């Protein structure tokens, strides 16, 4: 356990460090933020003043060292654009993204697990085949296109759901959440579904594959030979085994959901971190980009950690010592 934690920690440090270097160099290579930020009629003097005030006149390595020094004290820099601490900006936006991602996760499990279970238990029935064909669709549809179609149909044509934005929020634990209000939920529905689409397919497939594989196992047959009811065999013996891959992948996917919310957020104008990062990339707001990626990486690592811990809870055979070697 300790070994595992230590290993993860080292890995996290390495990744975060490598990433910050890459992003620094990358943003430097993409362009000069001052060019973008500065008013077009600003003259050279004004330009130089801006460069200096943002610390962009130092050599890159020097800028990096300054950043690193501050980062070690928990200061990830100030946004060029907003002149606010990058971290604060991101944390402000994080709840919106998190609730979207978790919403999507929730939908994908609630929808995907039963469908996958059914398809796995009756692999040859027409319904299962339909489910599987449908899941291929879910795999194949580009997120942005589906998002647009959803808006077209449900907001514009039918008018059932609000098209974009986050809607009303309620405060809980000092953070604004929209899932606590009806209006907020109705705003969340489409983006969450949009984001969930791919995951639903994934969960269906994983579940089905897991069920099919598990059903072939001797221990399932043994469970039946013990005279257990089919329900118990399915929901205890089979289910617990398929939960392992499902939880793992779904957990790991949470990270990519958060990352992929970039697309959904920009389609649905959802004010989360994803939209922030796109906007920041557009204006080369380096501190925000770096901070965002660092946070994303840390989140990934944390999620992985939690997933692995869950994994070891679900599967007693796994001892964390051996993992990640």
């Amino acid at each position, binding site marked *: 356990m300790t070994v595992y934690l230590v290993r993860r920690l080292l890995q996290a440090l390495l*990744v975060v460090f490598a990433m910050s270097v890459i992003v620094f160099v990358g943003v430097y290579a993409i362009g000069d933020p001052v060019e973008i930020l500065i008013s077009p009629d600003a003259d050279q003097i004004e330009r130089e003043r801006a460069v200096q005030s943002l610390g962009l006149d130092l050599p890159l390595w020097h800028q990096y060292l300054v950043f690193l020094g501050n980062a070690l004290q928990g200061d990830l820099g100030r946004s060029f654009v907003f002149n606010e601490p990058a971290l604060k900006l991101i944390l402000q936006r994080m709840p919106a993204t998190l609730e979207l991602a978790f919403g999507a996760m929730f939908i994908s499990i609630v929808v995907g697990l039963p469908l996958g279970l059914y398809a796995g238990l009756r692999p040859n029935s027409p319904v299962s085949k339909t489910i*599987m064909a449908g899941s291929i*669709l879910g795999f194949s549809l580009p997120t942005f296109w589906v998002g647009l179609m959803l808006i077209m149909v449900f907001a514009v044509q039918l008018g059932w759901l609000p098209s974009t934005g986050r809607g009303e929020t309620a405060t809980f634990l000092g953070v604004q959440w929209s899932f606590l209000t009806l209006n907020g939920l109705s705003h969340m529905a489409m983006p969450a579904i949009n984001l969930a689409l791919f995951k639903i397919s994934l969960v269906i497939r994983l579940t089905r594959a897991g069920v099919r594989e598990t059903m072939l196992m001797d221990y399932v047959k043994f469970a039946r030979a013990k005279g257990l009811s089919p329900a118990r065999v399915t929901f205890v013996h089979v289910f617990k085994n398929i939960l392992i891959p499902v939880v793992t992948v779904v957990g790991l996917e949470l990270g*990519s959901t958060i990352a992929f919310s*970039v697309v959904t957020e*920009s389609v649905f104008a959802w004010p989360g971190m994803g939209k922030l990062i796109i906007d920041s990339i557009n204006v080369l707001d380096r501190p925000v980009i770096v901070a965002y990626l660092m946070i994303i990486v840390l989140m990934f690592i944390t999620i992985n950690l939690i997933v692995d811990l869950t994994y070891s809870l679900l599967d007693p055979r796994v001892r964390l010592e051996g993992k990640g070697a």
Partner: protein
Amino acid sequence: MSDATLNGAAAAPRKDRVETPFRRFVSEFMESRIAVLGLIVFTIIAFIAIFAPWIAPQNPYDLAQLDIMDGRMEPGTVGGAGFTFWLGTDDQGRDMLSGIMYGLRISLTVGAGSALIACIVGASLGLLAAYAGGRTDSVIMRVVDLQLSFPSILVALMILAFLGKGIMNVVIALVIVEWAYYARTVRGTALVERRREYIEAAQCLALPTRRILFRHLLPNCLPPLIVVATMQVARAIALEATLSFLGLGVPITEPSLGLLIANGYEYMLSGKYWISFYPGIALLITIVSINLVGDQLRDVLNPRLKK
């Protein structure tokens, strides 16, 4: 000592045809009708993509052949150049049908090209990691971890922002995003296969390492690789579409399907659905057909579902 002949007689081949692993694979693949359908559709798509310059009514990449006065024509209108725009035109007066054919070409090139390069790079590194073990293994796998801990779309975004537009750059970005999947897959399989007795047998026969690696180990690591590759082709096409949609990706004058969709995106709500809709359908069919094939491949090549 008559066992030789007896044995031979007993096992006399029923069919004369030798059942090669490939033939067996083909026949198993054919078992799923929908997968065969997917394969046929994909073949047609690939055909269209390859022969687009010869069958498309217009070269949508040649600005001289476009006329903005033909822009946003409805499907079925006859344009200034005298031929019918069966699927309408986009804002530049680009024939959508031709645009889709050429777009397929780009999308498939990007998808297949990136998957192929990523596969070669990833598979070599994965094989190396598995066979060499030790330091080499951990260095390679750390890089893989690093790579996989970045959200792919963000990596691609950053890389493209850095490299600029262009088909080649998209391919590079996708390769950088994807190689790690192959490396991980191959390493995983190779680690298992390496412990198989036939590898030991080959070592015992004092075959050169290179031969063992490429003639014995690699072919047996291919099945999962192929599965990953098909899935990644589909993924790459979708990712390229998304990138183009986000404004990075291929040049605007040589639109891929994704860019066609992105271009038509704004017109979607204004009733000029065809600009975005038809490329969307083409993209959908392409990805679905690849996934159908990949799906069946996964079933056929998965040793665990086999008895």
